[in-house]
């Protein structure tokens, strides 16, 4: 995704590689994106002119479990990055796959949750709470999905490359993204689900 090759050889002024610095900046920008969405949700969560309220439909035990699963995927991502640093392609691919699978489980859980909420009467257009809830968690879900697709593509690219460990920079960059998405989920979980309205 990034043009690494040309400038890898260069010594950069900051010592960070271009790709990693770029990813950090992107994540900084993403903070504001989620900041905006979370603010919107916080403003609107109590505005239920129609349909169920948050307290009525949230299933905290389930969401706790799925949050835990996402956190575990951060752990496996760390293992993947470690393996990549050791130029252990088998380990890298394995842990990337496990991370992707855990991520997919999380997204599966989110699809389940959305379906369940919809059946209980909370549609996207039902109330301000519905619109802002689905927008916020949906944006996060899309980020996780994009992350999973990146992980799977990385595995595929890794298998094609002939030099072991040649993609460790990219693994690390996607690792940054993945951890960021996890951290955002912790914030969302706390603010959206746990703190009572």
């Amino acid at each position, binding site marked *: 995704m990034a043009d690494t090759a040309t400038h890898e050889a260069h010594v950069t002024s900051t010592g960070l590689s271009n790709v990693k610095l770029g990813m950090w900046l992107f994540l900084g920008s993403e903070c504001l994106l989620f900041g905006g969405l979370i603010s919107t949700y*916080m*403003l*609107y*969560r*109590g*505005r239920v*002119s*129609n*349909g*169920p*309220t*948050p*307290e*009525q*439909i949230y*299933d905290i*035990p*389930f969401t706790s*479990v*799925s949050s*835990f*699963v996402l956190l*575990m995927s951060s752990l*496996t991502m760390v*293992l993947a990055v470690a393996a990549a640093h050791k130029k252990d392609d*088998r*380990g890298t691919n*394995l*842990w990337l*796959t*496990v991370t992707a*699978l*855990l991520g*997919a*489980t999380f*997204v*599966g*859980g989110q*699809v*389940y949750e959305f*379906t*369940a909420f919809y*059946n*209980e*009467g*909370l549609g996207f257009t039902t109330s301000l709470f519905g619109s802002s809830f689905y927008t916020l968690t949906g944006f996060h879900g899309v980020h996780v*999905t994009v992350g*999973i*697709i990146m992980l*799977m*593509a990385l595995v*595929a690219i890794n298998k094609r490359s002939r030099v072991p460990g040649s993609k460790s920079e990219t693994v690390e960059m996607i690792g940054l993204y993945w951890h960021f998405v996890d951290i955002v989920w912790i914030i969302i979980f706390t603010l959206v689900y746990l703190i*009572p*309205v």
Partner: protein
Amino acid sequence: MFKVGSKLFLGLTGFAALTLVAYLIFVERLALGGVALSVVFAVLVGLSAVIIMINDGDSEVQPRDVSLVRASMWPLVTVVGFVLLILGLVVAQVYFIFGIVVVLAALTEWLVQAWSESASDDAAHNESARRRLLHPIEFPVIATLGLGVIIFAFSRIMLAISKSAGAVAFIVLSSLVLLVGAIVALRPALKSALVSGICVAGAVGIVVGGIAGQGAGLRTELAEAAAEGHFLHRECGEEKSKYFDKKAMKTISLRTNPVAIVELRGGVLSAIMTGFNEPQKIVSVPRGNPVTFIFRNFDDAERRMVASLGTAMAAGAETSTEKEGHSDSNETCTQLIPQGAEQALTVTYAKPSIAQEDPLTLTVPGVTGQAIEVVVP
């Protein structure tokens, strides 16, 4: 001038034309089918034209090494696609659309493969040419499909089993993934056949589970909730309604600039309004405009505020009339809230007070003799 590939495509085009005509004559119950077949026909015409124009991908290098042509699964997949397509005509639209997608995908793959094989005399180079063109679409599509299957199957399982079992299933599944990952990582000597076996077993398991879940349908509470609209019952009496009043909100995020804050304090109901220095008993509200009241309960019992909307209501002007169980459609209310809590209520008064038989009021069930009059000029 017509080589093998061209002939195949011309044949397919003819076949598509025949199908289209036959379809239009005999079936004609599904307008979409006709459109889709026309699209297939048009695509095939285009592809045939291309294939003829490029002379099956080669004009100069006539004799080719047999080894350059690799085994291909695309003819088979194309046929499967056509079977699906025809099946779709008879059984259901979804197979038909799926068939079209499969046919188009397979033909594209086939075309590119055929093209790449005639690109040069170096098989490895040919393969890299094919990859360069197709990997960008193969990778994401396969990734998305795999991901979609897992997500869909898993969510179906979760929807079918009960709430508590769902959480457990979630833990079990993710632990399994972790466990297998750990074992494979710790035993580098593990045979790759075994690893693949485990993966395939896992994949089959989740797909089978998903199909079973889809078959079993929603768990009972969800099915009921969908059918009855649990959270739409706003019964504005003193009693609790079963679902609507479950765990009422204690505070609200909407505090800015309501039309009035209605307080219940010591059995007395009063309206606090910006601009008026004293609590009021009459609230003047613009007609036809959504206005928000905030109800604050300082009573030690659980209370709710009920707004009467009057007898002369505009048809369909209010939102809370869809589901059954609404005896009184001309009132709306907040949830039951405990002491110290607050709730917002957004109301639209479509008709003026002079059109009403009784005065419009804000009341609290269980508190007698107290009402705030709402005047709509």
